[in-house]
């Protein structure tokens, strides 16, 4: 009898707290969005599932010696997982369109204003007394506006590990929402005529340029902003492996087995930060709200920069491609293409938008370096 009582005390249903039940529902919601709505499923399936595991009462999965806690210790608190993913992303990135039209790098710079505006917003909310974000936390929240998952996870792992869960969820959710968030803003800040602008075809880019570019970028980062070097270094390494053409077997592994293994482990480890005690706090709402603002502002400043460049430059530039500067590769570039085709069926902006799109990855890694340098 006593044994049965003890058994009953050991069940999850006896130990379950309301907030844990709520977080299990949040995990299921993330899985629903990932599977039915195709919200960044590669990340949100592991994150959502990890979130459920992290909130099972009576067993340590996300704490102490639990398996998700071990994944977290192994790869997130060390920064290894996001850096390896960045290497894999580098090995899948084509800088061709960017090299064909290097000025589009400036669009990737402009769109990072979303990051810094959000940092200001978070500090402003703290001044108002609505939330209580430290400077480190505000910086980590701002990086959501970089629209780049591994960068956001890397930065918040350094500056504000206690917010890693909500920041990662916000980053990947809003990236998935790019097709909903961006178009209204893009239309608001451009005229029909601007959206109709056709751009001239991109020039041919040689393999040697593609090989030299990641090295050039690496050296420039090393000389200017060393704190961005881990992120951009691994990114350039992946890209160099891809472009140099002599280590194809390593490239294939970096693009497949390695990035997939790390994605599974990273997703589960991020999920382990969705523990009720950490996630169900007021600041999560603030993070979700600020993240949305960051995306919106980045889109806006990217488009405005596109307008300015179109105004100043001899060659026509469709300002829509500025919206791709937030990164969210390749979703944002596809959105640009779609909005462009709506205005002018002969408009194929996809390749033109890929330049600012990958420039946005560089831009947000630079912004990450500055934030780590100045507030870390």
């Amino acid at each position, binding site marked *: 009898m006593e044994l049965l009582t003890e058994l009953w005390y050991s069940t999850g249903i006896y130990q379950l707290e309301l907030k844990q039940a709520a977080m299990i529902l949040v995990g299921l919601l993330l899985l629903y969005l990932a599977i039915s709505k195709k919200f960044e499923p590669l990340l949100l399936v592991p994150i959502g599932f990890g979130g459920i595991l992290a909130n099972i009462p009576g067993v340590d999965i996300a704490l102490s010696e639990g398996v998700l806690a071990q994944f977290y210790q192994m790869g997130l608190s060390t920064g290894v997982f996001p850096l390896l993913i960045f290497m894999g992303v580098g090995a899948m990135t084509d800088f*061709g369109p960017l090299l064909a039209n290097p000025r589009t790098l400036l669009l990737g710079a402009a769109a990072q204003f979303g990051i810094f505006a959000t940092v200001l917003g978070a500090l402003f909310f703290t001044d108002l007394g609505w939330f209580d974000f430290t400077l480190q936390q505000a910086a980590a929240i701002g990086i959501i506006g970089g629209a780049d998952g591994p960068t956001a996870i890397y930065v918040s792992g350094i500056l504000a590990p206690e917010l890693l869960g909500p920041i990662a969820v916000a980053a990947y959710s809003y990236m998935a929402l790019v097709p909903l968030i961006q178009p209204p803003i893009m239309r608001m800040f451009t005229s029909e005529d601007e959206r109709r602008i056709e751009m001239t075809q991109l020039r041919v880019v040689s393999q040697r340029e593609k090989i030299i570019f990641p090295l*050039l970028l690496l050296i420039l980062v090393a000389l200017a902003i060393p704190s961005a070097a881990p992120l951009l270094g691994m990114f350039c390494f992946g890209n160099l492996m891809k472009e140099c053409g002599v280590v194809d077997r390593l490239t294939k592994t970096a693009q497949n087995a390695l990035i997939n293994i790390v994605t599974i482990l990273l997703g589960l480890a991020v999920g382990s930060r969705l523990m009720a005690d950490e996630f169900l706090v007021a600041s999560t709402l603030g993070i979700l709200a600020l993240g949305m603002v960051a995306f919106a502002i980045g889109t806006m400043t990217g488009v405005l920069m596109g307008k300015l460049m179109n105004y100043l430059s001899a060659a026509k530039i469709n300002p829509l491609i500025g919206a791709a500067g937030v990164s969210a590769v390749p979703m944002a570039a596809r959105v640009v293409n779609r909005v462009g085709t709506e205005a002018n069926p002969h408009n194929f902006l996809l390749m033109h938008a890929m330049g600012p799109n990958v420039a946005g990855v560089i*831009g947000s890694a630079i912004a990450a370096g500055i934030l780590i340098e100045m507030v870390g």
Partner: protein
Amino acid sequence: MQGVNLALVGMGVVFTFLAALVFLTTLMSRVVARYPAPDAGLETIGGDSRPASGSNSPEGVADRQRLVAVITAAIRQHRGHR
């Protein structure tokens, strides 16, 4: 105040960095164009020249091209015979 400084300096650095990168990239492309590679056959178009996955070894590519050629021929024949 700290935040405003951070935002100003931050955006300044991001812009300066990427502007420098525009300059250096343009310069690099010009230098490369001036001294063409010994084997100029490797030039590729602005889009991605190689599929992100799959074997990129020269033999692999040649094999694939041959396969595609053969299959195309087979399809054409097949259609012709119907």
